[in-house]
C-alpha cells in the first residue's frame, strides 16, 4: 500500500525511526557488554567497573575453551533440544485444543473448564507434593518428568483462546455446513489462520524451556546424563566464583582467573542459538498478515 507523505507523517517517521535507533542502542548495551567481557583479559575484567565497549586487553578465547572443555555442555545441548521440541509439541496441541474449547461460547463446559484451568495459574501445591505425584507416576529420573508436567499451562491456553475469539465465526460456520468435524475445523481450518499467535506461544515456550533448569534439578537428581544445558550452565556459574582464589598457588593458576570470564561465556553460549533462531520465527508474524487478509 502506497502511503501519502504528509508533513506530519514525515515528522512522525523521523521521530519513530530515531526512537527505534535509540531504543535499540539501549537494548544492545547489555548483550554487547557480556560479549565483550567474554573476550576480555580475565585479570583486567576483575578490575573493571562499568560497561565494556571493547575487549579489555588482548582478545582471549580462554573462557570459551574452558566452558567447551566441560563434557556436559554437548550432552546438555542435546537434552535441551529434546525437551524443547517435545514440550513444544505437547504445549501447542494442548493450547490449541484448550483455546478452541474455551472459545466455544455455547459449549456448556467452556465456562467451568476456563475456571478449572485458571485456578491452576494461582494455586500450586508446591515442591514436595509435586515431586510425590511425579514419583508415584514412576516418572522420576526419566525424561518424561521434564516433558510432560511442565508443558501445558493455563497462560498459553488463555492466549490461544483470545486468538480464537479474534477470528470471525464465519470460518467455522461454513466448515460445519461442509460437514467438517471439530478436529478438522480446529487443525485444518482455524489453526493456519492463527499462525502468528502459535508462533508467539512457541517462542515463549522455547525460551522458557531453554532456560528451565529448575524442574530438572528437582526431578532428575540421579541422572546427570539427562540434564538440560541450563542446569549445567547454572552449575558452571555457581561453581566458578572467584572465592576459589584462596592461596598463592590458586591465584597464579590461570584457570581460576579465567573462571571470572566463564559466566559471560556461558551467557553467550546459552543465548546465541535463540538469538539466531528468532528471525525465523519472525517470518510467521509476517505470514500472519497475509493469511488474515484473505477474507477480511
Amino acid at each position, binding site marked *: 500500500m502506497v502511503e501519502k507523505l504528509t508533513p506530519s507523517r514525515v515528522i512522525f517517521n523521523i521521530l519513530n525511526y530515531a526512537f527505534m535507533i535509540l531504543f535499540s542502542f539501549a537494548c544492545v548495551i547489555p548483550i554487547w557488554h557480556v560479549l565483550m567481557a567474554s573476550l576480555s583479559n580475565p*585479570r*583486567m575484567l*576483575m*578490575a*573493571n*567497573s562499568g560497561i565494556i565497549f571493547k575487549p579489555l586487553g588482548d582478545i582471549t578465547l580462554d573462557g570459551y575453551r574452558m566452558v567447551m572443555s*566441560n*563434557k*556436559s555442555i554437548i*550432552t546438555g545441548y542435546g537434552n535441551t533440544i529434546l525437551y524443547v521440541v517435545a514440550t513444544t509439541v505437547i504445549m501447542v496441541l494442548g493450547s490449541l485444543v484448550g483455546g478452541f474449547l474455551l472459545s466455544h461460547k455455547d459449549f456448556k463446559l467452556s465456562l467451568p473448564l476456563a475456571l478449572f484451568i485458571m485456578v491452576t495459574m494461582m494455586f500450586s501445591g508446591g*515442591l*514436595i*507434593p509435586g*515431586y*510425590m*505425584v511425579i*514419583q*508415584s507416576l514412576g516418572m522420576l529420573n526419566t525424561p518424561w518428568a521434564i516433558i510432560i508436567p511442565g508443558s501445558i499451562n493455563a497462560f498459553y491456553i488463555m492466549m490461544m483462546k483470545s486468538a480464537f475469539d479474534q477470528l470471525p465465526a464465519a470460518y467455522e460456520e461454513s466448515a460445519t455446513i461442509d460437514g467438517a468435524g471439530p478436529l478438522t475445523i480446529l487443525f485444518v481450518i482455524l489453526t493456519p489462520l492463527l499462525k502468528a499467535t502459535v508462533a508467539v506461544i512457541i517462542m515463549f515456550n522455547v525460551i522458557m524451556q531453554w532456560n528451565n*533448569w529448575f524442574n*530438572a*534439578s*528437582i526431578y532428575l*537428581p*540421579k541422572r*546427570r*546424563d539427562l*540434564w538440560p544445558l541450563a*542446569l549445567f550452565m*547454572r*552449575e558452571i556459574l*555457581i*561453581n566458578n*566464583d*572467584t*572465592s576459589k*582464589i*584462596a*592461596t*598463592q*598457588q*590458586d*591465584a*597464579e*593458576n*590461570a*584457570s581460576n582467573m579465567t573462571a*571470572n570470564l566463564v559466566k559471560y561465556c556461558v551467557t553467550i553460549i546459552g543465548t546465541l542459538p535463540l538469538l539466531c533462531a528468532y528471525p525465523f520465527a519472525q517470518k510467521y508474524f509476517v505470514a500472519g498478515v497475509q493469511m488474515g487478509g484473505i477474507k477480511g
Partner: protein
Amino acid sequence: MSKRVLALILALTLLTALLAGCGKGGNSDLGELPEDDESQTITISYWMYPDDYRYYNSLTDNPVVKVLDQMFNVKLEFQTPAKGSEADNFQLMLGTQDYTDIMNMTYCTESFGTLYEDGVILDLAPYIDEYMPNYKALLDSNPDLKRAVYDDDGHLFSLVNVDDVDRTQWGGMVYRRDILETMTGGNVAFPSGNAEPTTVEDWDYMLPLYKQYFEATGMPDTACLILPAVGYMATGELQAGWGVGPAIGLTTDGKTVTFAPAEDSFYNYLSKMHEWYEAGYIYQDFASRTNDMFYLPNTALTYGGAAGIWFGLLGQLSDRMSLPEYGLNMDVRPLAAPLDTANGVTAAEASSYVSVDIVAAHRCIAASVDPAKLPRILKLMDYLYTQEGALMMNRGLNAEQAANDDLYKEMGYTDGAYWFDENGNICVADWYQNAAELGLEPMSFTGQRLMGGLDETCHDWPANQERTYLDDAEDNADAVWKTYGNARVLPGAAGQMNPEESEKFNAVYTTVNDYVNTMVPKFIIGTERLNEDSWKAYLDQLNALGLQDLLEARQSAYDRYLAR
C-alpha cells in the same frame, strides 16, 4: 460417563499421593542385625552434594568409589543435586521420605534429635562396638570430638568428618602498604608507634592518606575502606577492635551468648563508622553491594587498585594483585582488628572465624535402611577412619590400588597419589602437589568430602615436600589475622539446638536480623541519626522483636553443650 471416570481418577491420584505421603513415624530400632553375607553385592545409596566433575560424569566413576565398590562388594549409588539446589534437594528428600541409605547432613536444618524421634535417622550407638572399631577408637581418643557427636542421652547419630588441625585462615582484613609509603615518602609513622597499624588511631592516620592519594589519581570510583553490605561482619573481624563479638558470639569469659549489633560497644563502632563515612573514607556504595559476599568486596575496586582497606584473601597478599604491565603495583599486607583504645579496648578477642569446630561434616544413616545392608555400610564407613582409608579420601589411591584404575592409567599416575618412604613418612606425588599449576582438580582423584574422617596424618605436610602450600607472606598473614584468638567464637557443635530451642530461634531470627540489617547501614550512612535516643529506640525495638528469645534459645543449647 466421563464425569464418573474423572471423579474416579481424581480419587485414585489423590489416594496414591496421600499414601506416598504417609510416613512411618516413631523411633526405629532395628535391634539385632542379621549376619552379613559378604558374597552378596549390595547397593548403597548415598546423598551428597558434588564437587568438581572435571574428569568424569558421575561420582560412580570416581577412582576411590570404584576401589571401595570392589573392596566391599557394594555398588555405591549417588544422589547428587545440582550445584545451587542442594538445600532444595535435601529438603525434598526429607519431605518425600525417599531417603538414601547414607545422607550427608550439611543442608539439614532440623536437629538430629528431632530427626531421630521422627524416625528419619538411626542411633548408631548400639552398633559402634561391633562394627566400627576404628571410629570408636577415634572418638575415645578425642574427648572434644566425643562431646560433639554424642547427645545428652548417649545417642550417636552421625559419622563425622574430623578436622582436628588448626586451620589456616584464608582471609582477613588487608591494607595497601604501598600507598602509605608513597604518601609519606617512605616514612610511615603510625601514632601507636608500631610498625603495623594496630589501633583505631592508626587507621585515622591511614584513611586520610588513602583519600588524598585516590583524589590525586583522579579515579572516579575509589574506597579507602570497604565495608560489607550490612555494615558489620558476621564473623567479627572488624568490629572486634571496638570490643564487639561475631554476630552471634560469646562473652569474653566464654559463658554467655551475645548478639553483636546489640552490644553496648557496638554504639562506639557505629559512631566511628559514621564519622568515617561522612569524611568519605568508607566506600560510598557499600550498602548496595549485597551480591558481594562478605569476603569478596567489589573486585573492580580491589583489583583495580582503587581500594585501601578491605576483607582480603591469602591469594591477594604482597604483590599478587599487581599488574606491572599496566603500571599497577600493589603491596597488600594483613591487618589485625584496630583497637579502640580511646574507649579502653586493649584486646580484640572476637577477632576471627578460625574454626573452633573439629567436626567438618555429618553423615547419618537413614532409619529406612535395610537391616541386612547395615553391617556392610558400617564396615565400609569404618574403613575410612583407618589410616589407609583416610589417605584414600584425602590424597587418592596408592600404587597398588591405582594399578587397575583407568583414570589413573590414562593420566599416567601409576605410582599412585601417595606412598611411604623408608622411614615410614608419607610422600605425595608431584602431580598432586602441583595440581593447581597443572590446572588439575586434585579432588577429582580423591574421595574428599565423599565420606570418612580427615585424619591428622593427612594434614601434616608429607615428607618429600617443602611446605610450599603457605609462603612467608601467607604464614605471616595467618598469624596477624589470628592475633587476638577466637575466644568469643561460638563452637559449631554448640549450635545444635533441640526442637523447642530451634523453634524459638527460627520464630524471631529473620525479623531481628532484617531489622538490624536495615538499621545498621542507615546509622552508618546517616539517614538515621545515631545518638543516645535513637540507639535506645533501636535496642527497644530489637527487644520488642524478640531478641531475648533468640539469645535464650542459643544460650540453653550452649549450656547443654557445656554440661556434657
